[in-house]
């Protein structure tokens, strides 16, 4: 299998001297194309920092992140921003939908921003897979939490990113709805050939993934390679 995402000796330190916090302390991992990986750890374990590094939202103190064989931190900030927009999809705990746009407009927003033509058939499939066909005209305020998160997932998938990064995607949802949303995340990941890295502190949700990476004190405890 192709390795789509690879980190080598990734470190992120804050502060200096005795007050230095090692949020990440030498993380090396490889994720295969099309895999669904979950990262679990207690709060403060460094899992969110890891996700921010993987998504190029923050620069590491040391080490590299390669996406599709490209060292993302070798790019300057402008190039990195464009690279991120075209290659990485994000899903956060808060859905971050634009309240005045309906579901469909929210989904299409990133593509429109990039000035690209919309691949109608593909978008249609995503909306269908995520069960949003009847909700496309609804404003975010009229949708339940689970539905809003499904719109956010559809938006992340719409730009055909090579990797989807999800940070506690069901943090605001009850456990029934969470399983629903994660199920759709998993199914659409498989259907559209997406690589998904999901952060969670919930062991049960983590088990939806094919591979679980445990992270504690900025280090990987297990599951880095299988």
């Amino acid at each position, binding site marked *: 299998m192709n390795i789509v995402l690879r980190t080598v000796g990734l470190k992120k330190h804050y502060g200096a001297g005795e007050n230095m916090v090692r949020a990440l302390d030498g993380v090396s991992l490889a994720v295969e194309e099309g895999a669904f990986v979950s990262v679990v750890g207690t709060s403060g374990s460094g899992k969110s920092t890891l996700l921010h590094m993987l998504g190029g939202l923050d620069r590491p103190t040391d080490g590299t992140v390669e996406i599709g064989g490209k060292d993302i931190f070798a790019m300057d900030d402008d190039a990195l921003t464009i690279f991120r927009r075209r290659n990485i999809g994000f899903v956060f705990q808060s859905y971050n939908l634009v309240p005045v746009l309906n579901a469909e407009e929210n989904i299409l927003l990133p593509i429109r921003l990039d000035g690209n033509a919309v691949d109608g058939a593909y978008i249609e499939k995503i909306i269908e*897979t995520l069960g949003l*066909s009847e909700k496309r005209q609804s404003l975010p305020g009229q949708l339940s939490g689970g539905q809003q998160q499904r719109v956010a997932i559809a938006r992340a998938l719409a730009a055909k990113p090579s990797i989807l990064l999800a940070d506690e995607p069901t943090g605001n949802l009850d456990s*029934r709805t969470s*399983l*629903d949303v994660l*199920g759709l995340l998993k199914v659409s990941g498989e259907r559209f050939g997406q690589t998904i890295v999901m952060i969670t502190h919930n062991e049960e949700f983590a*088990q939806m993934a094919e591979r*679980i990476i445990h992270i504690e004190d900025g280090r990987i405890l297990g599951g880095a390679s299988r």
Partner: protein
Amino acid sequence: MIIGVAAAAVCLAVLLLYRGNTRRTMRRLDEMLDEAIRGDFAAGRYDESQLSKIESKMSRFLSASRLKKGQIEHEQDKLRALISDISHQTKTPISNIVLYAQLLNEQEGLPADAGALAGQIAGGAEKLNFLIQSLVKISRLESGIIKLSPQRGEPAALIADAMEDCAAKARRRGVTLRFDAPPEPIFAVFDARWCAEALYNILDNAVKYTGAGGEVCAVLTAYEMFVRIDVRDTGRGIREEEIAKVFERFWRGKDSPAAEGVGIGLYLAREIIVGCGGYVKVRSEYGKGSVFSVFLPADNCDKMRIANRYS
């Protein structure tokens, strides 16, 4: 002065012409890529321009990759034919072995231990038969010879059927099977025949690893997007480090009973469920039992059209 203005005008004209040209070229390149993606690219014109050269190269590249694709498909066809040959040609010899082992066992005046040996032969042959049949099913599913056709149905009926098929084995082992259908009918979208097999494999696995006096029960719950079927057992459970592996092909637990199973039932089950647009998940506590959860797409018109991975 006049010369200067004229020179400026010429420069401007050249610049505009050049820009227009570049834009046209870029547009044509974009079109070419779109055509290539759609699969209807053909080199349009033959002249001395750079663009025409690129067109020719592109069409050469595309036909080379088409050729490669054709070769791969051909290889796959050969593989499929081989697999169906294997399944077909081994059927008769295997059933002969089973039959003659049984006949041997029924011979009078056979030494005492010969009967046991004949029984072993029959058992081994049956296991071989099961293995080959399962492998053939898997390869047919994976290569798309069999298409799953998910349709609206009641998972409760699916569970009842699979339980019936498991009943004899459960009785033999002293395991109680239980399923309380919810009062309201619940609908999901699934391929009834294949999902029955998937569910049977999961139930069969649960029964296999639950000792006498234990219980295997099924619980059906409806979510918004999925219908969930839990199969709970009071068996030995799965060690944490082994949980991720139970759905792998040919994987068997370290302390599985030696005689039974080849490690293919759960793998096949997952392939089927995923093929129907659902997913499976397992939770287990070592020594206490496991819960295998099957999630099938709930019935709403959206999901009717969810083409699965195998179609």
